[in-house]
């Protein structure tokens, strides 16, 4: 709510104007009590009374006026008035040194009123600079690249550059630019400079809002978004469901408190369109999983309805893999696939008879049935508590890029296996029992095995998982990784990158004989993940999803070859890596990269939204920012109020003395 140039943070306080009834009531009810007195010269009194009555009425009206004014001023005070900087020059010394810190992150491309915030910011800067003398000291700092314009020294120079400024797709925060601005003030030795921060006002604009500001700098924090909240429902991430090649997970972010229903449109390359209605009940983040009957097509386009920020409404998804994984399970049990055998639990984790739907082709054999034709067919060979009749076949399989997994058990011939393991620097020792059983935990969350599922989810999956017996494995100088281990660091899972393929050794059983893993929530995703891990060849394993910021940090934007860029970006005048699908050549291999916007940039929650909970306001005040000039206006109002209270008190006291004295 704004009145003239003054806005109010808490306009509801004007409900307090209802209290105006009090002075009016007092005024109407005021009847001074008088003592009777018989007096002869009543004529003279009546003659004087005409003047007196007039004066009395004026005094009473003044008294009521003062009281009304006090109620009004109190209401104004509680409504927290401030002067919106965009309206005037309040506090701006026209030709004082000025530094403009412009937020050029992608969130400035929001267009709540039809025009993008970046254009609005550009206009504001132009208005600001045109009021200044052309040679007045002026600097321009971009949040995305604070060092971009070191040669700009005057208002005219900044004005020249202004039309050429572009926002970037990066998710830059203002922190670095703020530090740069303070450094400039120190270097120039300015005694009093103005730092005008122009941003969209999102919470994500700062990594950490400064707690204090130097006394020499007057910081004016101008949000160009206005008071209306931004509506934004965006696609923050689209990825394959963990361990399920036929499903995708769509992460949605409601970054602008949108509450209407929305339709998510999924478009296939063959023209098929699926419309998925969603209720958007004010959630902040949510994940929808879509299972597809057949293979996920080569590309899949997802679209959301238009809103204030249109750059996150379309994502083109390229599935990680369309290839079915052939898995050869070699079970040492004499009755493979019987209930409680290792292969039963393993197969169960991969979908049992329906495993084909999940992209797996299973073949369960005994060690005696192992032959070369089967190893050639397989992408992954799982040796579950099995003898090792022909270690050469496993070595060949690894050399040709296949994956091999070995789980332990009583049937293992240690010498034979050590012959195989020794080629990869591993050594197998005796089995050891733990009484009571001990929990195991993930030691390396950054291992590719765990990449697609959040760390917190993994912790939940492994809750209650204990190991009662295991085989001691040592890795020596092999370079093998130990992603899962006991609390004391004893390896439970070892992964090793062989010449072409991958080797994984699970130092305990795959069934319930030695541990409780097969009954824990983590068993199914773990088995699927390790199968996916072992089956990935070079060209497949190079698939990668990155955010724009990660592309910028790794400085690989120039190496990216666009394969598909969403339509909304094609005609956009914006710098930085555009979201889309790219390829990149790494060591003669083609890396497949899907670039998406930083999720923080989709969040348009503002400080004003926090102000409703009395936090955002404090954050800005503590930072010493003058985003509202209330800090200046309020004392004036208070002094005015105090003065009026004083006057009112004097008038009231005088009237009381005159009318109420006895």
């Amino acid at each position, binding site marked *: 709510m704004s009145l003239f140039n003054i806005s109010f943070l808490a306009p509801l306080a004007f409900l307090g104007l209802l209290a105006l009834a009090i002075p009016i009531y007092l005024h109407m009810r005021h009847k001074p009590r008088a003592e009777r*007195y*018989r007096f*002869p010269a009543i004529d*003279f009194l009546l003659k004087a*009374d005409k003047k*007196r009555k007039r004066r*009395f009425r004026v005094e009473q009206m003044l008294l009521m006026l003062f009281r009304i004014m006090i109620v009004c001023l109190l209401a104004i005070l509680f409504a927290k008035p401030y002067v919106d900087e965009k309206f005037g020059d309040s506090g701006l010394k026209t030709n004082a040194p000025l530094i403009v810190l412009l937020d050029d992150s992608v969130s400035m491309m929001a267009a709540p009123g039809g025009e993008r915030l970046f254009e609005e910011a550009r206009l504001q800067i132009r208005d600001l600079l045109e009021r200044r003398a052309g040679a007045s000291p002026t600097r321009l700092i971009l949040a995305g690249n604070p060092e971009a314009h070191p040669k700009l020294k005057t208002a005219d120079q900044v004005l020249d550059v202004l039309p050429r400024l572009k926002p970037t797709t990066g998710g830059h925060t203002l922190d670095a630019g703020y530090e740069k601005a303070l450094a400039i003030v120190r270097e120039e030795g300015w005694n009093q400079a103005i730092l005008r921060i122009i941003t969209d006002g999102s919470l994500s604009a700062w990594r950490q809002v400064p707690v204090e500001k130097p006394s020499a700098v007057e910081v004016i924090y101008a949000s160009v978004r206005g008071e209306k909240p931004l509506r934004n429902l965006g696609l923050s991430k689209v990825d394959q469901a963990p361990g399920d090649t036929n499903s995708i997970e769509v992460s949605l972010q409601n970054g602008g408190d949108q509450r209407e229903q929305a339709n998510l449109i999924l478009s296939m390359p063959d023209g098929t369109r699926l419309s998925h209605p969603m209720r958007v009940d004010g959630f902040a983040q949510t994940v929808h999983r879509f299972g597809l009957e057949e293979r996920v097509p080569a590309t899949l386009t997802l679209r959301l309805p238009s809103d204030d920020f249109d750059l996150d409404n379309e994502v083109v998804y390229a599935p990680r893999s369309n290839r079915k994984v052939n898995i050869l399970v070699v079970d040492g049990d004499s009755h493979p696939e019987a209930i409680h055998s290792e292969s039963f639990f393993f197969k169960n984790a991969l979908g049992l008879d329906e495993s084909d739907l999940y992209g797996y082709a299973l073949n369960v054999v005994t060690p005696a049935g192992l032959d070369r034709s089967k190893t050639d067919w397989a992408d992954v060979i799982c040796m579950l508590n099995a003898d090792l009749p022909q270690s050469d076949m496993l070595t060949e399989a690894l050399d040709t890029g296949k994956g091999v997994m070995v789980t332990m058990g009583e049937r293992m011939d240690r010498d034979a296996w050590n012959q195989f393991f020794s080629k990869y620097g591993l050594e197998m020792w005796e089995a050891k029992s733990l009484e009571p059983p001990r929990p195991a935990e993930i030691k390396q969350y950054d291992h590719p095995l765990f990449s697609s599922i959040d760390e917190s989810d993994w912790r939940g999956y492994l809750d209650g998982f204990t190991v009662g017996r295991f085989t001691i494995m040592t890795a020596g100088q092999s370079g093998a990784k130990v992603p899962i281990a006991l609390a004391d660091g004893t390896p439970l899972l070892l992964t090793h990158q062989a010449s072409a393929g991958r080797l994984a050794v699970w130092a305990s059983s795959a069934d319930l004989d030695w541990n409780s893993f097969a009954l824990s929530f983590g068993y199914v995703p773990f088995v699927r993940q390790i199968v996916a891990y072992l089956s990935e060849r070079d060209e497949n394993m190079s698939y990668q999803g990155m955010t724009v910021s990660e592309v910028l940090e790794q400085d690989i934007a120039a190496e990216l070859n666009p394969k598909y860029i969403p339509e909304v970006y094609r005609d956009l005048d914006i710098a930085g890596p555009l979201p889309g699908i790219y390829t990149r050549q790494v060591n003669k291999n083609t890396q497949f990269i899907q670039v998406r916007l930083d999720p923080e940039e989709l969040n348009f929650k503002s400080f004003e939204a926090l102000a409703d909970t009395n936090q955002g306001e404090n954050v800005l005040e503590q930072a010493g920012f003058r985003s509202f000039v209330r800090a200046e206006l309020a004392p004036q109002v208070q002094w005015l109020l105090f003065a009026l209270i004083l006057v009112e008190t004097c008038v009231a006291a005088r009237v009381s003395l*005159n009318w109420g004295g006895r």
Partner: protein
Amino acid sequence: MSTSHIAGLSPSVLMGIKNLLVRARSVVEGALVGEHVSPFRGGSIEFAQHRSYSPGDELRYIDWRLFARTDHYHVKQFEVTTNLRAYILLDSSGSMSYPEGQGVAKHDYAATLVAALSYILIQQSDAVSVTTHRDDDVIFLPPRSQVAYLQQICQIIENTKPAGDHDILQLLKFAQDRIVQRSLVVLFSDFLVDLDQLMAKIRILQSRGHDLMIYQILHRDELEFPFSRFYRFESMEDPRFMVADSKQIRAQYMEALQEHQDQLRAAMRKIGVDFQTVHTEESPSRVIANCLNGPMRAKKLRKLY
């Protein structure tokens, strides 16, 4: 009690003397102490003074003895040759009862003066008439000069309680109709009336050759308005009232009063009437003494013959 003590009695002490006649005598005795001499003369031809002879004067009034001593002609002049008739008009309207509580009421004070004046006149064998109100009637005592009449006058005045809105104008109209011969007319009132009407009636009396002595009796509260509280002021003669803060209204009241008094005095001076404002804290003896010896009074008395 010696007369010198009586002369210094304050009005409040005097009013403690319940008998009006006694009170009047006390006042008169106080007034006649020292060099004061009564200017009221009458009953016989008495020598007053000599005057140089002017052609046309009667030869019988030439003082031949003085001619023998001074070798100049002088004629003798004589004072009043007839009995004096004094008509006293006492205002007994409601406003004269102020103050109603403590203090000397204006009516009581005026009654004392009336009685004292009557006492003096009757002692000199002059005839005194008193006119006042009682309820809705006008009480008129015709002029008499017997000493016993004084008792009757005092009794009538004492029994009169000021009330109602019968003001001095009504008495003046009554006097117009009743007083035929040239007389001394003495008025005691607060004169809180319309001045134009008042002066019209006084002028009529004066035009008929009456000698007028006018006493305005006011209380100090009326003159100074020393109130400081919030009062509902009510009229003593009619239902009018007003609610006001005394302090706030004082200036305007004083202004209105001053204007009234100035107009009253100016009007009296203009027609040459002996007018005096008396407040109830003044000594009645002093008022009577001033009345007897005032220059204006002596001048007027000479006009009587």
